[in-house]
């Protein structure tokens, strides 16, 4: 499975990591990874350090995640995007919309 979801109760953290290709084929898996979390004040981390390709529909999926996070008064951080992925985030100027940690 190329979407992993790690929920840690202790520090209210949900870590979602996407491996290899992040594209439309992951649509359902990606949604499933977070849609069950309806608690508030959660720190969501989207780990893209092992993602080596991302297309524009992946950007759309990140926006949906962001929407979910905002709706539940939580926080979203994109963590360690690889160079290729970072280039795409940069073109889309996503650092204007959310926090990206390198």
């Amino acid at each position, binding site marked *: 499975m190329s979407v992993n979801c790690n929920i840690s109760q202790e520090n209210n953290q949900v870590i979602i990591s996407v491996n290899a290709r992040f594209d439309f084929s992951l649509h359902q898996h990606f949604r499933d990874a977070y849609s069950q979390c309806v608690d508030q004040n959660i720190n969501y981390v989207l780990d893209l350090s092992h993602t080596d390709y991302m297309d*524009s529909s992946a*950007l759309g999926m990140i926006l949906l995640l962001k929407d979910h996070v905002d709706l539940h008064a939580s926080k979203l951080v994109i963590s360690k995007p690889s160079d290729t992925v970072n280039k*795409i985030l940069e073109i*889309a*100027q996503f650092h*204007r*919309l959310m926090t990206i940690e390198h």
Partner: protein
Amino acid sequence: MHIKTQAKLALVVDDSMTQCMMLSALLKEEGYQVVVANDGACGVDKYVEHQPDLVLMDINMPVMDGYEATRRIKKVSRENLAPLIFITSMDTDQAYIDSVEAGGDGILVRPFSPQVFKAKIKSIQRISDLYQQVKNLQQEQQKDAELAKIMMSDVIESRNFALNKVGVIKQAATMFSGDMQLTALCPNGDLHVLLGDFTGHGLRASIGAIPVTETFRAMTKKGFSILDIVAQINKQLCDLLPKDLFFAACFIAISEHDKSAYIFNAGLPDGYLFSEDAEIKHHFPSVHPPLGILPKLISDAKLTVVSVGSSDRFVLITDGIIEARNEQGHEYGVAQFEYAAKKGVLINDIANNVVASLEIFCQNMPQEDDISLVDVPCSAWQEDNSADQTNQPHIPETFIVEDIFYDASPSWSWRLELTDNLLASVNPVPIIMNQINEIEGAGEHWQSLYTIITELFINALDHGVLGMDSSLKDSAEGFSYYFKERTKRLEQLKSGFIRIELCYFPFEYGGKMFISIKDSGLGFDIFNVLKSNSCAQSEGINLSGRGVELVNQLCDTLDYQDNGSLVSASYVWHNTKQYRVSKGIH
């Protein structure tokens, strides 16, 4: 051709008359009409003739057995799924396997009760109905896709301006592209260009194309600035599109007479400005998230302004080019693109050179994403229309005597005063042009008026209210400094006003518009501007003050008072054609 009536039609193929009668009776109870054949060959003929909805087939028959008949029937009915059931008393595994191999959809072993027979017919009919439904849906989808394709390419893009001057690559990954390329001419002769890429591709990606096109064209025509258009398209798409669909797009407004261009890149790869000798003069990286995500543009969103030479070219691309992959999984990338584009500039065919280079790189790999490029020259889009342009109606060739008597009182007048921070946020020119169009109707002759009002308003704002020095624009560095400084002063603007008044005098064959614009500034030395312009212009070096020069040419009278803080202009137009017709002049 057989025309299907309400009742379904079944074909029974069996050499036993008794069997035929028994099956026919059961089928009729289920509401079928029945056709009968007594051997396989005859069954095939009847099938072709009647195109039944259901076939019941015996296995052992004279002339041609059931398997062979089934194979032939399935061969001729590739399009239609009429379910075929074998009816047999051979209760062996081999009979079952052979009947499925031959193309049968089911088997019913004798003896069976009428209830079992009817249940079998019902279940097989259900599957066939589903198949029909899927087929209908597929056909509808195909039709929708074709319609959308026609809308996209024929309706949207064929209405683009200066098509023959703009180089274009457009290769859709699926039947139609989520990429779009638009060009439209502003009332003052500037060119607006858009290259955009909706998330994903195919039909889903192209639903936003129609509202974007309408807004882009309508607002350009009404004279809105490119940033106003970007903001409006962004708002519209944010309202219209689902959260995960957005529009990466780059906009350019090119002014041929100002030798400048404004660029706004929201989510596309770098745009380029190439010089004639293939040097990259500027990169235009993305400065804003794609449109349709945020309800409003980010507050510091602003245009990049550059001065352009008349033989410079803008090149915009979507990510499909850079991200195209070859069999080894390598990306085409920015470096190869730039190399191919530069070579393309030198042979004056960027689009084809890039396409050729991409093809060599990707070999036979299927294309994953839509691929688009536009190549826009910075001048001479209007060459084709130049014959009409030289003979504009704004400067009357001959003085028409009876017009004097129409000059007494205005038929209407109109006034707008903008104050304080509204000066930074409201562009009055589209509002004014809208008023004029509302009252006097649309017409080509308002183009020049648009230019006059735009130039005079901008002079009043820049040199009057903001106190900008126009000589700054004389050098390329000063030019960009000028726009930075102007933006800063606009943001800090606390007080000031600009008052615009219009008076319209209709003539029998045309009309006259008086425009007066008063600003709160200290004034500026208009004569100096004009004088330094004409000196500089003869040397062909200055970038500033063309506005006043141009207005002077377009206006009947142009008059600066109050040390330059009040300007009055009059613009006269004659409908020469109508006049000539009514006077019998040819």
